[in-house]
């Protein structure tokens, strides 16, 4: 993404090969992903049904959080979730989904449990100052539920059934969830990569239906 022209060239070069199913970028690059100079990439992403996959990771161009440079890897891993949140807001408020309404964005290794409160806050802030971004005509949460998908590892919640059920209920869209193991990384969530106490109805959707819907080229492979 340092050079959108070259990125566009590479996407064009691979587009006919259906073994490529998404465009992978980092959660923390040089600038936020909503910026207009990236839009040629999103135009192709929409055209070729390649979701934009944002994976945890940084170029370390700026501090991993607004608080500054942390001492520990543990803190860095913690604040990484915030970078995904900033990317969601950037993509929405710069108007990417007004221009490319069919673009899908997949958050990879972002954590999941922050989504409800993040969406509440986004809706509230948008209601307060939407005059600044009049091209965003719907609540951010509605755009998030429609255009974003999230991988289920790490889930970042207590294992009890009630909390998991509440979080799923608050996110309010079962089609957002995608199974992921993070294999072979050490953050892999134990022997069973499916977070405990997920309702059965979600498990089959997140393992099969949702990935096929999110990555349409999976059905075209070979």
């Amino acid at each position, binding site marked *: 993404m340092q050079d959108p022209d070259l990125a566009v060239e590479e996407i064009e070069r691979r587009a006919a090969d259906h073994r490529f199913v998404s465009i992978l970028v980092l959660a923390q690059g040089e*600038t936020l992903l909503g910026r207009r100079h990236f839009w040629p990439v999103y135009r192709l992403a929409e055209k070729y049904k390649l979701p934009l996959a944002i994976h945890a990771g940084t170029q370390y161009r700026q501090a991993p959080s607004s608080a500054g440079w942390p001492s520990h890897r543990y803190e860095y891993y*913690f604040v990484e979730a915030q970078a995904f949140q900033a990317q969601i807001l950037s993509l929405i408020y710069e108007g990417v989904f007004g221009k490319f309404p069919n673009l899908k964005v997949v958050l990879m290794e972002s954590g999941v*449990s922050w989504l409800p409160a993040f969406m509440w806050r986004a809706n509230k802030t948008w209601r307060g100052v939407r005059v600044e971004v009049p091209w965003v005509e719907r609540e951010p949460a509605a755009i998030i539920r429609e255009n974003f998908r999230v991988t289920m590892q790490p889930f970042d919640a207590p294992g009890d059934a009630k909390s998991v059920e509440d979080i799923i209920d608050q996110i309010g869209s079962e089609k957002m969830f995608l199974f992921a193991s993070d294999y072979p990384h050490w953050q892999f969530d134990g022997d069973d990569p499916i977070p405990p106490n997920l309702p059965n109805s979600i498990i089959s959707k997140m393992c099969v239906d949702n990935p096929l819907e999110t990555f349409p080229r999976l059905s075209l492979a070979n």
Partner: protein
Amino acid sequence: MSEVIDRPLREDEKPVASRLRIVDCDVHPSLHSFDDLNEFLPKRWQQHLKEYGSHLRTPYLFTTPYPRSSPLIARRDAWPPSGGPPGSDLAFMQKQHLDPLDVEFGILQVLDLFIFSQQNLEFGAAIQRAINDWQLAFWSHRDPRLKASILVGQDGVDLAIAEIERCAKIGEYVQINVSPRANEPLGRRRYWPIYERAQELGLPLGIHVGGYGGHAPTGGGWPSYYVEEHQSNAHTIAAQLASLVIEGVPERFPKLKFVFIEGGFGWIPSAVWRMDQHFERFRSEVPHLKRKPSEYVREHFWFTTQPIDEPDEARQLRSLIEWVGIDRLLFSSDYPHWDFDDPRFAFKTPLTEAERKKIFSTNARAVYKF
């Protein structure tokens, strides 16, 4: 968002005397003009302020990097009829806010002059000292409901400690305020002498959102709009919570209390779950931590409620409050800013009388000891 009161309350709308009197943990007084500070500021620094103004890590003088939707981020009805900026006229603040909402105590949070973000540390310390005096002379002494905070810039650790000592001798301040956006995260060891002194004096650390420490407001870079920057305030607070806990500040200073102001509280459960979830995996990196992060959070940290979260359904706000813990929450209004929370309407979920009492009064009185 809460309903905005853009007219004076009629007599029949005023709260009845039997209602709970509230502690408002975030009230913003404002300088009428820089001249307010002259009597507290040595000539040298008055001259400096006139000739050089602020030196901040932002692109403009006397304004913010993002236009903030509302002039001086204020409620449109909060401009005093006497002139001057919102929050600069005590009589008007009493009439519009303190009296009708039955505020028993209000804690002053001063943001003028980007007080925490001055790059010239000596100038910053002089301004902080002047504003600490101004809070007493212009506000607390004129209305004893209003409690002052000791403002210090943590990047000048020695200057900060000298100011804390000076104010502690005066004895009228209820907390020490430091910046959420300084050169380094708050947990870093260079700031520990401040925490050591705060613990000895029994003063909580108050951390109000805002300021410009030079780092991008988000971990992904600089956003384009205020609507993004506004939400990044909660990120900063969450990152500072993680820094303090993971560096072991509560472990090292077991009696120290932290109050995070204007970060809201919706983000807390997931932040604490994430810290706990990854604690086992990173444990060997942080052997100084004896307990799970959530245990430190539940003992050492309090959070003011504004801007209150507005979930789609009332029961979700209820779950959120239960997850955070009712004892952690301190009511705040943010008067006179545009995103003000009105204590009568902000909590859109039923609370018992005992719960209301904790959030609106007794939790704050216990933290601040009044």
